[in-house]
C-alpha cells in the first residue's frame, strides 16, 4: 500500500471530530468515535473504548484487636499493603500513675512526628480549665496522660487516622485523645487533638502503642485498614 492510499484510507475512516483511528484486528483499520465529556480511554475486549472512569471505593476492615496489658510497648505488625489506617484505643490504663500514651509507626523512634493542634483541660473549677495550642516535632505521637492517681474510671481513649501508609513518602495523620485524670483529688478531663505529618519514608508495616510509665493494665487497640 502506498502512502497516498494510506492517507485516503484514514480520511475515509475518520469522519467526525474526535474520532480515533485504531486497528480492530490485524491490518484492519477502524474508527472509534469520541466518547462523552469526562470519559477516559480504556480497553475492553482487547480494543480501545471510551468509558466513564471508575470511582475509587474505600472499604475498611478490622485487621486486629489487641488487649493492652502486661507490657509497656505493644506492637501490631505485618500491616503492609494498606494505604489508610484507623487506630482506635479504648479504655487504656497503666499500672503506674502519670503514664502518657504514645504511638509510633514502624517502631521509628526518630524525630519524625511533626504536629499541630490544641489541648483542653476541663476541671471542676475555673483555674483548671484551659485551651492551649500545641505544635512541634517529637519522637512519637502524644495521646494523653493519666493523672497522678490511678483508679476505676481514670483511663483514656484515642483515635489516630493515617493516610498514605503504603507510600514511600511522608504520611499524614490526625489524632484525637482524651483522658480522665485525678490531680490532687479533683477530677479533670483532658483532650489532645490535631494533625501531623509522619516523615518516615518506609511504607507502614507496624504500629506501636507505648505506656511511658509502667505497663498497660487495660485497654484495647483496634486496627482498621483500607487499601
Amino acid at each position: 500500500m502506498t502512502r497516498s492510499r494510506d492517507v485516503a484510507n484514514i480520511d475515509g475512516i475518520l469522519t467526525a471530530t474526535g474520532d480515533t483511528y485504531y486497528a480492530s484486528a490485524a491490518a484492519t483499520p477502524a474508527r472509534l468515535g469520541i466518547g462523552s465529556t469526562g470519559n477516559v480511554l480504556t480497553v475492553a475486549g482487547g480494543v480501545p473504548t471510551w468509558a466513564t472512569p471508575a470511582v475509587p471505593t474505600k472499604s475498611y476492615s478490622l485487621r486486629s484487636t489487641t488487649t493492652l496489658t502486661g507490657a509497656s510497648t505493644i506492637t501490631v505488625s505485618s500491616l503492609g499493603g494498606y494505604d489508610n489506617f484507623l487506630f482506635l484505643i479504648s479504655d487504656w490504663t497503666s499500672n503506674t500513675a502519670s503514664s502518657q500514651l504514645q504511638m509510633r509507626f514502624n517502631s521509628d523512634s526518630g524525630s519524625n512526628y511533626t504536629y499541630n493542634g490544641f489541648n483542653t483541660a476541663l476541671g471542676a473549677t475555673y483555674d483548671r480549665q484551659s485551651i492551649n495550642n500545641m505544635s512541634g516535632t517529637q519522637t512519637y505521637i502524644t495521646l494523653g496522660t493519666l493523672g497522678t492517681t490511678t483508679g476505676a474510671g481514670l483511663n483514656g481513649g484515642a483515635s489516630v487516622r493515617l493516610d498514605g501508609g503504603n507510600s514511600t513518602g511522608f504520611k499524614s495523620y490526625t489524632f484525637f485523645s482524651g483522658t480522665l485524670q485525678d490531680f490532687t483529688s479533683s477530677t479533670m478531663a483532658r483532650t489532645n487533638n490535631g494533625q501531623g505529618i509522619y516523615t518516615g519514608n518506609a511504607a507502614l508495616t507496624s504500629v506501636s502503642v507505648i505506656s511511658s510509665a509502667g505497663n498497660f493494665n487495660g485497654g484495647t487497640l483496634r486496627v482498621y485498614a483500607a487499601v
Partner: protein
Amino acid sequence: MKIIEKEFNVITGEETITERDETAAEVKARLDREAEIAALTAAQAETAAARQALLARLGITAEEAQLLLGGN
C-alpha cells in the same frame, strides 16, 4: 527498670514478648517526665492551698465563691 514489649503479627497470629533494660534515652525521658509531673503536682497543690487560704480569709466556701463568679 525493665521494659516489656509485646508484638502481635496479624498474619501469623504469633505473639512475641521481649524483656530488656531501658536505654539511656528512655531513662532520661522517664526521669524528665517524673520531674515534670512532680512539679505540676506541687504547683497544683500550691494553687489549691492558696485558694483554700483565700476562702478562709473571706469566710466563704468554694461553692459560694463559684456562685459569686457566676460559674459552675
